[in-house]
Each structure stands twice: as structure tokens, then as C-alpha cells.
């Protein structure tokens, strides 16, 4: 789904109607597959996402270090739901998938393993909230993939290259754009949602304790998903972000290059370098 800019994607959506349709048409063109084949592949990806949510919410997994597992279930069952069911379901599902990922279970990189919880959490919960048909989720995934493709082309999706903003920030942007289209928002509004999500996570570093994709990664999927929801609400209300999405993505890439290596997935700075972080890493050998 290789669009090099949101501008180009938006122009394509001008004739297809939605970002999703433009994304699917481009993927079919690039791969030589039919549009219905592309949809079948996306649907099978959704199945893996759904299974990961179920597995994580069951709450029986523990990670290699023992630091994570079971919290998604705790949130799902025990959270006071002060901000409403949609919000709590989203953060619980985001953690569920991230826990499965941390436990070396099967997930969909969305766009990465470390940030794999945000997108499935947001779009599946939105589908429940809106009563969307299964096809709408396929469209949502296509929209998300197109946005992720633009970010990969212009900046990076790698925590080692650009920090957590490149992972959960990208995931939140992909999810926000997808959710806006699910809710009937315009392609332009979807772009604003992605921009709001990225600006909210701009500069976030990658500082995994012990070098494991566990702490803070699982919690960051929940908080990243929360920012994604905020972005959706802003965009659907008609609020516009004044900097175009392509420029926001370029800025994210620039910020990523400025982040020192100690805060880019080397476990040498941030939370990983705290006394507790170091002690947890030392006390829990992984093999």
C-alpha cells in the first residue's frame, strides 16, 4: 500500500471516495492481485488480531521475565470504567495484544510487534460501538496500512531508529485515521486524526527495561490507544490540525533522528536506566 505521501493518498481518495478504497486499489495494482484477494488477505490478518485479543484478555500468559501478563484481564474485569466502556475496552484490548506479543505469541505487526496492540484495540472496539459490518474492519485495516506506509516511506516505524513515537505514535495515527473513516468521517478528517495522534506522542523515547518488549511497552500500547481515541474525537468534531500530516510525519522522523541512541531501543537510558529498571533487568535473567 505504497503511497509516498498523504497528499498523494488523499488525491487518490478523491476519485475512490475513501482512503480505504484508494489503499486497496493501490495494493492490488502493486501486487497484481485482485481487489477481492487483497480483502481476503486483510480479513485473515483481522482474524489473527482477534485471536490475540481473546488470548490476551483470558489473562493466563506470563512473559519470559515474568514482568507482564494478566493485566489486560485485570483492566477488562476490574477497571471502574469512569471514561466509559469504549475507552476501557480499547485500553484493555491494547494491553491484551501487547501481552501476547511480549509472551512470544502470534500477533500482527501493526505497524510493529512492540506497538501491535493499538490498532486492533481501536478498530475492533469501534466496530462494536458503531455496530459496523465485518467489511468495515477490512476497510479500516486498509486505511491504517496506507497511513503506516506513508510513515514508513517518509520517516521510520522502528523504535531503534526513531524511538517509541515511531512505533506507538505510528500505530495511534494508523488507528485514528481508520476509526475516523469507520465512523463516517472524511479522508481529510482521517488525516487530521493521524496528525493529532502523532503530535500527541511526538518525542516519545524507546527505553525498554532489560531490553525486553514488556515494560513500559505493554502499558504504552494502552496509553497510545488512549491518545488515538482523543485524536478520533477531535477530528470527528471538525477540529483541524494546522500542520499537514506529511509535515507532521517529517517532523516525527526528524525528532527521531535527534533522539540519542541511549533512548532508541538500546535499554541504556530512560526507564531502563532507573535503579528499579536496572534491578529488574538484573534480577530476572531471561535464560
Amino acid at each position, binding site marked *: 500500500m505504497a503511497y509516498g505521501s498523504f497528499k498523494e493518498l488523499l488525491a487518490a481518495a478523491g476519485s475512490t471516495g475513501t482512503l480505504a478504497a484508494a489503499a486497496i486499489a493501490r495494493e492490488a495494482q502493486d501486487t497484481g492481485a485482485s481487489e477481492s484477494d487483497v480483502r481476503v488477505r486483510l480479513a485473515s490478518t483481522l482474524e489473527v488480531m482477534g485471536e490475540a485479543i481473546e488470548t490476551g484478555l483470558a489473562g493466563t500468559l506470563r512473559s519470559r521475565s515474568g514482568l507482564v501478563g494478566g493485566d489486560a484481564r485485570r483492566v477488562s474485569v476490574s477497571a471502574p470504567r469512569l471514561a466509559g466502556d469504549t475507552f476501557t475496552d480499547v485500553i484493555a484490548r491494547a494491553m491484551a495484544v501487547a501481552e501476547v*506479543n*511480549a509472551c512470544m*505469541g502470534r500477533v500482527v505487526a501493526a505497524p510493529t510487534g*512492540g506497538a501491535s496492540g493499538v490498532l486492533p484495540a481501536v478498530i475492533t472496539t469501534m466496530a462494536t460501538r458503531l455496530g459496523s459490518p465485518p467489511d468495515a474492519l477490512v476497510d479500516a485495516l486498509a486505511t491504517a496500512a496506507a497511513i503506516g506506509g506513508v510513515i514508513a516511506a517518509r520517516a521510520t516505524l522502528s523504535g531503534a531508529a526513531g524511538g517509541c513515537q515511531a512505533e506507538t505514535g505510528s500505530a495511534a495515527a494508523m488507528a485514528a485515521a481508520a476509526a475516523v473513516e469507520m465512523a463516517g468521517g472524511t479522508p481529510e478528517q482521517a488525516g487530521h486524526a493521524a496528525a493529532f495522534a502523532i503530535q500527541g506522542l511526538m518525542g516519545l523515547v524507546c527505553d525498554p527495561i532489560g531490553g525486553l*518488549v*514488556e515494560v513500559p511497552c505493554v502499558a504504552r500500547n494502552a496509553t497510545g490507544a488512549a491518545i488515538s481515541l482523543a485524536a478520533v474525537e477531535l477530528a470527528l468534531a471538525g477540529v483541524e490540525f494546522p500542520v499537514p500530516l506529511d509535515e507532521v510525519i517529517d517532523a516525527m522522523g526528524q525528532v527521531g533522528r535527534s533522539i540519542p541512541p541511549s533512548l532508541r531501543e538500546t535499554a541504556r537510558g530512560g526507564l531502563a536506566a532507573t535503579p528499579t529498571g536496572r534491578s529488574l533487568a538484573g534480577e530476572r535473567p531471561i535464560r
Partner: protein
Amino acid sequence: MIGPSSSHTAGAARLGALARAIIGEPPTQVEVGLHGSFATTGPGHGTDLAIVAGLLGMTPDDTRLPLARQIAREQGIAITFHECDLGEVHPNTARLELVAASGRKYLVQGSSLGGGDVVITLVDDFPVEITGELPMLVVVHHDQPGVVAAVTARLAADVINIAAMQVSREQRGARALMLIGTDEPVPDDVAAGIAAIDGVAEVRVVPRV
């Protein structure tokens, strides 16, 4: 994919799979150098397991991935890992020195770019760019007039479209390398036909990974 990191696990598995495809025969011995974030957080991300899984031909969603090192041992493949500093390369870079069953030695270096995207940047002495997104024909040949034309003519005769192409050489008149990305996979008989072209030393077919 199998977690926990698309760069360190899924991407690493694809790097292993590409290395295996590029050498074109099973390895018996592999020394893996891990650079940057691959070295510092790789063990926690299962990077070692993933590279081995790829070398064994597993895909990034293979649930046997966590057992890869054990499976390699059972198959008699000796794989060792060490940290290395490769200088100004992508933070997630691995350098694989492989010995194949034939006794031949290979060097393959590549980076995991995020989200599972990868690029092989070095094969033996040749700088390359192999992403695994297209089927790739790797042609080692002598740097002499007409070889490129003969190879592309053979592809054209079999209606195989060239999507990307890169030619490099060690020095004028010496060993050279053609990397040809194609839209259609290159069948074995076509590869054999290309291998028989005057000036072509060897041909390897690297599938989409």
C-alpha cells in the same frame, strides 16, 4: 508474526531467510555478529531465535520460532552469536558469516528497518539492496560487454518483467554482480539457461521472503 518485536523478531527472521536464500544451499556453520540495538536488546527480543528460524526456512509467524536454536542443534547446524560494531549502519544490523555444506564461505549483512521490513546490504564483497519484496535473480558474472544484454534478453524471451535492476563490479574487467528484481518468479530452467550464458559464473534465485 510471533512476538515480541517486528524489527528484532519478524525482521530478523526475514534476514535469516534471505541469507539462506542468497547462499542457495543449507548452511552448516553460521557466525552472527549483532550490531547496535540488535546487540543490546536482541537477546530480550528473541533476535537470535528469529535469525536461526529464518536460516532454517521458518516464516516469521511460525510457532516453532522460540525453539529454533534447539532445532538447529538437532540438525547439526552450528550457530554462534557475538556483539560487533559495524560503524555507521542502521542500529538493527546483523552480519552473517556462513559456511555451506559444500564448504564454501559466504558473507551476508543486512538491516531490519522496522515493521518487519528488511534490506540485505552486503553479499560477500558486493554492496547490494535486497528487500525480499520481489523475487530476485542474483547473477555473478565477468565484467565484459554483452552479459547484461544476454541475461535480460533471456528474461524477455520468457516474458519475465524486470521491476528493478542493479549492476556492480569489483573492478573493470573483474567479477561483477547483477541483481534483478522481477515481477514473476524466475523458473529453474530459465535460471539454468542464464547460468549457461558466456561470462556468467553463477546464478541464484531468491524468492520473495
